[in-house]
């Protein structure tokens, strides 16, 4: 007989629910029963049974698994072997054992936050996470960005609005949120709905005065150099 938390207070006996596609598993040694077909993060957030940080996750769009902060340890063989998985993507399974705050998980989170802090030292939410997890000054070279490339703005525009006015371009450390041809002004594709600004976890993308969003200025101006060069040539050839 397992218990089912609702709002963290009420409990219902599972035997009283008919025809429920239920999945019973444990989170941090506590039993949970939720409906199947959801991810660990969704289950944990809905039941409030634990607190897993997740920056690139938003319930309104599909999960992406980019920030890796939501990593937890999972065992599917009764506790003999554990593996690291991104809880925003991993589906709940009958009998699984989930640990959200082991030493290893905390160490990993601390490491990821340190990397994020090195990328975005002046971003409020990163600073707050750093304080929560005891990360002080990063041991590496520090940049000055606000965008963590979580992709929420891109996914919001694509999945909620269906417009796909912006996308993630380039590869690796040069990845950035951009409009086609690295334009800083958004064209007609953008309907000015502001969903991208709404889902952004760090405030890197903001609403401009003209009703269109202002894209995160990339502090590694890789794309700028490229755009400027072709712009120059284009003007030179026309001028």
């Amino acid at each position, binding site marked *: 007989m397992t218990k089912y938390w609702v709002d963290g207070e009420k409990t219902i006996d599972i035997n009283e629910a008919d025809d429920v596609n239920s999945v019973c598993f444990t989170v941090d040694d506590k039993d949970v029963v939720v409906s199947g077909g959801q991810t660990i993060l969704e289950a944990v957030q809905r039941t409030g049974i634990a607190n897993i940080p997740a920056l690139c996750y938003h319930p309104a769009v599909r999960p*992406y*698994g*980019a*920030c*890796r*902060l939501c*990593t937890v340890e999972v065992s599917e063989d009764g506790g003999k072997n554990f593996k*690291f*998985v*991104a809880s925003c*993507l*991993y*589906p709940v399974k009958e009998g699984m054992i989930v640990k959200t705050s082991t030493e*290893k998980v905390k*160490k*990993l989170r601390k*490491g*990821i936050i340190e*990397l*994020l802090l*090195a*990328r975005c030292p002046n971003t409020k939410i990163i600073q707050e996470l750093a304080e929560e997890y005891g990360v002080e000054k990063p*041991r*590496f*070279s520090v940049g000055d960005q606000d965008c*963590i*490339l979580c*992709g929420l703005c891109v996914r919001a525009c694509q999945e909620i609005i269906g417009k796909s006015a912006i996308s*993630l371009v*380039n*590869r*690796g*450390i*040069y*990845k950035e949120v951009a409009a086609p041809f690295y334009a800083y002004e958004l064209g007609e594709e953008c309907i000015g709905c502001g969903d991208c600004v709404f889902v952004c976890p760090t405030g890197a993308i903001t609403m401009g005065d003209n009703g269109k969003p202002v894209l995160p200025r990339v502090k590694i101006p890789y794309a700028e150099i490229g755009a400027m060069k072709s712009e120059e040539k284009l003007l030179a050839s026309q001028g």
Partner: protein
Amino acid sequence: MVEQVRKLLDKKLKNTGELEKLRQAVLDKRDTSRITVSVCGGTGCRASGAEAVVEAFAEEIEKRELQVKIDFKETGCHGFCERGPIVVIGPKKIFYQHVQPEDVQEIINETVLQGKVVKRLLYIDPATSEEITYESDVPFYNKQTRLILGANGEIDPTDIEQYIAAGGYSALSKALFQLNPDKIVNEITSAGLRGRGGGGFPTGRKWQSCRTAKGDVKYVLCNADEGDPGAYQDRSILEGNPHSVIEGMIIGAYAIGASQGFIYVRNEYPLAVEHARIALEQAIDYGFLGENILDSGFNFKITINKGGGAFVCGESSALIASLEGKIGEPKSKYTHMSEKGLWERPSLLNNVKTWANVPLIINKGADWYSKIGTAGSKGTMIFSLVGKINNSGLVEVPMGITLREMIYDIGGGIPNGKKFKAVQTGGPSGGCIPEQFLDTHVDFDELTKIGSMMGSGGMIVMDEDTCMVDVARYFINFLKGESCGKCVPCREGLAKMSDILDRITHGEGKPEDLDTMMDLAEILSAGALCALGRTAANPVISTLKYFKDEYMAHINDKKCPAGVCRELIQYSIDPEKCTGCGVCARACSMNAISGEKKEPHVINQNMCIKCGVCYDSCKFGAITKQ
């Protein structure tokens, strides 16, 4: 239009009977009195000028109307790439290396027409200084077990009939008519074949999950996105014997119930793409692809897709994204590809070498195959033995051979009398193996035990002049450039690791850097999304484990013991050895070398940019590097 032309030419083999008849007909038609002349046409030999040699032969044969006497063919890669252009003259297989167009007339006159050997073109064994005449006596070749690569030297990859004459597509007939899908999967499983792309996953098990996966539409994929720098076996097989891969794929498709296949070749292999295309066209012409193959009722077709220049697309989920027309970003693989792969359908993805093993296993049987290799790793493996090694090229050996045998018996040891330092295996996900492990028996598990991995078979030999910190820096920079950038650990972690290694190799390293890198390594292996990120720190981990002294020299002493890291070395001229010839001064692009004629010259350290051109140009060994 193409279909109409096809019908007109009608080469389609309607059943196995016709296949066997054709095979026999080609063999019968062979004039065994003709002398075979095979020129290696692989990309490696082409880089050394093989195309001109081929042309020279073709012209000469045409001019003197020697077609009756000579069976001339341009074959696939023979594997001994450093000795190219290679020409082998049958039937005894006289082996000539470094052949130039100017040598062609002599070869025809002396060897082909009179059976005499042109001594200057023979291979000389560096160990014994002996001239070796026949291919089978060349130690590089005779110590190998060339079950897969052997055919490369025999057939012209653009002529399917040569493949058929050599026994090609007999495994397909057997699979279609003497076995059934379950039996095929059993054969592959009992043979013990493991994935040759890097993972070493039991192939039979993969086939079984795809076979039982639910769905009417399934796909068979060939991963020819050989991205590991230093490995080129897949290119060689796809260029030299594409039908072996195609035959394997058709058998696999039949076993799991797929009707469509894709070969994903990296963009940087134009010849492999070309030959695969020709092979596919011919396979369609002869009825091995398309509808009702050999009257079995089975339909299957294959498309070739080219990569776009991204190493990460060798990762299975990124490869699939690329096939779907999207950017090559991997996805977390919490659902297996065998259930949801390409277009969310069951997909069987195997590496080129894995596919090439399939016809062999079906023809000769799992019992025969499982006798080769070790308990955990069956069959042969093809390694690319490159770097600081005398005999450089592709080596196919049974699993279980020791590293020492590979490097010294087959590879001929380190050139210029230098000392062995390490061998790097498994590409950027692998590690560096030092001298104390030279007697390790090479197989999947043994290599993993010593901190490296089999990977795609790259085996890069390094000597005393290789800086291991620089090697780590090279791999991390490579991975940083190839990272897709999706997840924080890989994108940010590799960038920071690269910064640290740059500092260390520039003499600005700090002792705490090593701990920082180990912490970053942990973040990568626990947190990264895909296998590229999870194994990205291996080069650093393995070099730190076995070559920590080099790191400490860079950090504490600001010295590079191997003499590689530019900021930490100094070139100087030994006044005792310098003859004052001035060659170095002229070669120096910074005008940093001064001196009177016939007087010892001096390098101005302030102007020297450590490019090393003077060091290369001095014929008297008067320039030292420390």
